[in-house]
């Protein structure tokens, strides 16, 4: 599989529930970033976690990183209908390269 693959591909939950999305990657990284994209719109940066960090919080978002398993998870707590969007992980490779490699994304639908 390719760098930065999310699962599930689609997730549908009720408002107020928690949503967990996972991302796996193949190569060593400097950091991993999560982005949100509403349909046909731009990419909104959510959170960045560096390779030497294991967990990070921002508001209702919690991101974990396990470099030994080359995986990350994004947890959105107490979801809202406005959280409906596609969520992508993007990895920045080790070394001086800065290009981000994006996964295919998880389409999250939060039902009111």
């Amino acid at each position, binding site marked *: 599989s390719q760098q930065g693959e999310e699962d599930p591909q689609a997730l549908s939950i009720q408002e107020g529930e928690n949503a967990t999305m996972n991302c796996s990657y193949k190569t060593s990284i*400097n*950091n991993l970033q999560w982005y949100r994209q509403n349909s*046909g719109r*731009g*990419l*909104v940066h959510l959170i960045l976690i560096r390779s030497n960090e294991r967990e990070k919080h921002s508001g209702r978002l919690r991101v974990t990183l396990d470099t030994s398993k080359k995986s990350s998870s994004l947890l959105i707590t107490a979801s809202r209908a406005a959280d409906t969007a596609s969520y992508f992980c993007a990895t920045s490779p080790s070394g001086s390269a*800065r*290009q*981000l490699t*994006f996964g295919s994304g998880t389409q999250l639908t939060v039902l009111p």
Partner: protein
Amino acid sequence: EPEVTQTPSHQVTQMGQEVILRCVPISNHLYFYWYRQILGQKVEFLVSFYNNEISEKSEIFDDQFSVERPDGSNFTLKIRSTKLEDSAMYFCASSPSGSTDTQYFGPGTRLTVL
């Protein structure tokens, strides 16, 4: 809050025509990027730019593509002779410095090649 802006929001062109997509990165940022997203597919890296030169480019970024920072604020992507398969959303991004920094994306330009 500063943000990356892109113009136009939608560009329609005939195959074989040249297009220039424009971006204004966040003012104190030093690294600039172009990505594209073909409908229904992943976001793909095209090129990164630092200190007035290309620092990395992908295999997608062939001789038909070029980038320029013509003045202190704009960052442009030129496609010399557009093909049908160039139809995509093109995103500009910028970051303050270094590979550990967040890349902030613009709203994108939807390019349609007829």
